[in-house]
């Protein structure tokens, strides 16, 4: 007879630990309640309950990945709904015409950041058709988006990719459909490709003064906005976006149960890995408890673990702290860790310290996207 595993914490203690997140969520959405219409208020209320409820379950069960994934997949699938709807309401199409580019109305996406670094550093020129400061027609200006990204990155490091990126949830959703992976053998060298693409994109963008990734390689253009198809070049760009999206975000995650775009393609993810070096939180392996069962390796969605790294008790640099390996480990060998402390000593404290910051900002950033998308959906359903 299967005996259900005992809950990690009592309801009371879990609720107490959830209280700061509940108050934070209320604080984040209070302005929405003050200034919003009915749909926006409903969206905000749902998100407060959703984010607080998921955090409560993290506290109650001791699992991280399972609950984080619910938020993350919701973010991945609802972000395009809100974004595409706002584009169509504003300009009648998902495509961005050249006249909007020359007037600086392209919303800035954080994924462009590595492409613009060299020209910005050496020529003070931003090679993106947006605006530095926010305007009525473009609130997602370069200064706003980089400021937001930098603050979140200081808190999360590479965990941006599993708590903030509004694209990663799409492939995490498709990766979660099958019970077992159809394709199980993946060449570990694949994880080097994002670094190669990062180098290629940064250098080529600086050479031709164009955001190369954004113009040619971003799979998520298929579900956000893309240059209006008015020439052979823009038609080719559109085809590339669709093929990359279908392959890397839908089909391969479905077959491999991995986040293939994030793990084997995304140059921004590689760039974000660098910030893991300055972030105090990480996942480590207690060698005394580890039995080399490789469950953690199988569970890792981005192949951020290798046999060698586990032997050394570490993850690879591209670990995005999603918690899949910790949840999968049956021996409690994979643990949350605060750099500078002993591995396996008070891992729950490290997890809590990390989660308060990461979940708090996920509530602020991803939560507001969710609330906006929900309000948009309610509006589309003529709820109001």
């Amino acid at each position, binding site marked *: 007879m299967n005996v259900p595993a005992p809950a990690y914490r009592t309801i009371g203690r879990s609720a107490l630990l959830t209280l700061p997140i509940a108050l934070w969520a209320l604080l984040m959405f209070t302005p929405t309640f003050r200034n919003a219409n009915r749909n926006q208020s409903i969206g905000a209320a749902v998100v407060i309950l959703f984010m607080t409820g998921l955090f409560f379950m993290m506290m109650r069960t001791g699992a991280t990945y399972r609950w984080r994934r619910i938020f993350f997949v919701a973010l991945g699938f609802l972000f395009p709904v809100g974004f595409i709807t706002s584009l169509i309401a504003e300009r*009648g199409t998902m495509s961005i015409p*050249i006249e909007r580019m020359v007037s600086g109305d392209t919303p800035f996406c954080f994924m462009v950041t590595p492409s613009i670094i060299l020209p*910005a550093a050496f020529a003070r*020129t931003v090679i993106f058709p947006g605006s530095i400061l926010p305007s009525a027609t473009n609130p997602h200006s370069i200064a706003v988006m*980089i400021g937001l990204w930098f603050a979140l990155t200081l808190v999360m490091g590479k965990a941006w990719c599993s708590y903030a990126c509004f694209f990663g949830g799409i492939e995490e959703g498709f990766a979660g459909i099958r019970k077992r992976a159809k394709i199980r053998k993946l060449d570990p060298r694949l994880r080097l490709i994002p670094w190669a693409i990062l180098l290629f994109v940064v250098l080529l963008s600086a050479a031709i*003064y164009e955001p190369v990734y954004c113009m040619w390689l971003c799979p998520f253009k298929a579900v956000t906005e893309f240059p209006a198809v008015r020439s052979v070049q823009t038609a080719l760009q559109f085809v590339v976006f669709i093929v990359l999206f279908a392959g890397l975000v839908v089909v391969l995650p479905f077959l491999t149960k991995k986040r293939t775009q994030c793990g084997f393609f995304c140059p921004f993810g590689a760039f974000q890995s660098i910030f893991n070096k300055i972030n105090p*939180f990480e996942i480590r392996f207690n060698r005394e408890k580890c039995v080399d069962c490789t469950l953690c390796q199988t569970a890792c969605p981005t192949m951020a673990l290798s046999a060698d790294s586990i032997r050394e008790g570490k993850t690879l640099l591209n670990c995005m702290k999603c918690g899949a390996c910790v949840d999968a480990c049956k021996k409690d060998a994979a643990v949350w860790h605060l750099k500078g402390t002993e591995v396996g000593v008070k891992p729950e404290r490290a997890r809590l310290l990390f989660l308060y*910051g990461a979940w*708090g900002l996920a509530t602020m950033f991803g939560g507001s996207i969710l609330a906006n998308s929900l309000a948009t959906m309610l509006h589309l359903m003529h709820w109001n």
Partner: protein
Amino acid sequence: MRKRMLLILAYGGAALTLIIAACTPFFLMGAFSSAVAHAGLHIDAAYSGGTIARTYERHGYQIVVHVPVHTRALQRVDPFVQIDFKPVAALPAVVDEEVDLDGDGLNDVHVTFAMDRSPGAKLRGNVVALNDKYQTLMDVGADSFSQLLVNTGDEVVVRVPLNTESASR
């Protein structure tokens, strides 16, 4: 002693991330954004059209001429000069203007286009070069960043490619 120092640094670092997280929505995000805004960055002239060189007043509207944009060696945008006709609301049904682009007192291009104010309408028009410094564009619309005649909503933006062959002679 070293272990103690490491512990202090570790928990100090963790506390710092929590402080940063708590401050982010209230002022930290704004402070970082402000730092970016004041870093002296500008949008590449291939997109923005570059700085303004001179403005001509017409009957109720303005013609704004930008400094010529000379693109970089490997940049796929040809050198051009941007002219803005604004505000859109004040433009006549047919704009037919000769414009001095370099400020030498002689007109350089003859721009003609019909204003179509219906929603989603695409403009098309002609830019005839009056000397060999500029290229003539017939039936130009939203062709490329250097060959352009578009309505952005606030203004009509015209981009005339420089005749680089004549410049190199």
